């Protein structure tokens, strides 16, 4: 599939991704790209905003894309752990500097190593697409 093809393939019913990033220009760019790809995107400027959204259980979310280096008392790892504890089944993608976070990310993420920042937008989209496709496979039931 070419990049143009993949960008022009919106889901039949849009899946929602929560993007958590404290850098507005980074968040704006990756959120816009995901919207262009057919996803609904909820933007959070930090872990506190993300928690406010995540506590709205009536708000459907399929995946969370979070920077590991969020400012404040809760970084991306702690946010991922909170999601593990409170929103079971919600897919998590952590993004950051691989050298800093690979081992912990591998423990927390449902799919291998985390994404690298700065984001390569198409890589993010491909990863989210694979993550959600794997989740929807019958019998896959989050093998962990």
């Amino acid at each position, binding site marked *: 599939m070419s990049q143009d093809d993949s960008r022009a393939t919106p889901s039949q019913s849009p899946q929602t991704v929560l993007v958590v990033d404290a850098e507005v*220009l980074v968040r704006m760019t990756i959120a816009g790209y995901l919207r262009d790809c057919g996803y609904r995107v*909820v933007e*959070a400027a930090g872990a506190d905003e993300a928690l406010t*959204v995540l506590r*709205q259980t009536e708000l459907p979310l399929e995946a969370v894309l979070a920077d590991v280096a969020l400012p404040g008392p809760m970084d991306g790892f702690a946010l991922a752990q909170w999601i593990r504890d409170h929103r079971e089944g919600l897919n998590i993608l952590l993004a950051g500097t691989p050298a800093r976070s690979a081992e912990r990310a591998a423990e927390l993420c449902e799919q291998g190593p985390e994404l690298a920042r700065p984001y390569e937008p198409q890589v993010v989209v491909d990863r989210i697409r694979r993550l959600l496709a794997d989740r929807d496979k019958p019998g896959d039931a989050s093998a962990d």
Partner: protein
Amino acid sequence: MGAFAVCSSSTCPRRITVLVVEDEILVRLSLAASLRDEGFSVIEAANGDEAVAVLASSTPIEIVLTDVNMPGSLDGVALSRYVRSTRPALKVIVVSGRVGQAVATEVADAFVPKPYDPARILHAIGRLLSGAPE
């Protein structure tokens, strides 16, 4: 009223972009969704400092819609003054439950009191884009 009522997709090279500046995530989320549903492109900023970062970038923006009471170095009134001085062509709408219309309209092109119906926001945007008097 939708974004395309002012500038249809067949005649406009791109959608009207609104920069929404609001520190309450659920309010921002709801307002941004309402505007996107109407066909606007929306950029979300969680406070005045984020808004300044967006405004200082090359991102095309037509309208700034800002709350007043926000954490950080700029509240909505200061942000409006910043926009007036650096991007005078931009239209500014101030939304507040605390600042009165007199103060808001001194620094902005329109004022919508909180709590608001999204329809009032859309009306204000449409009026500013069309150049119609209040």
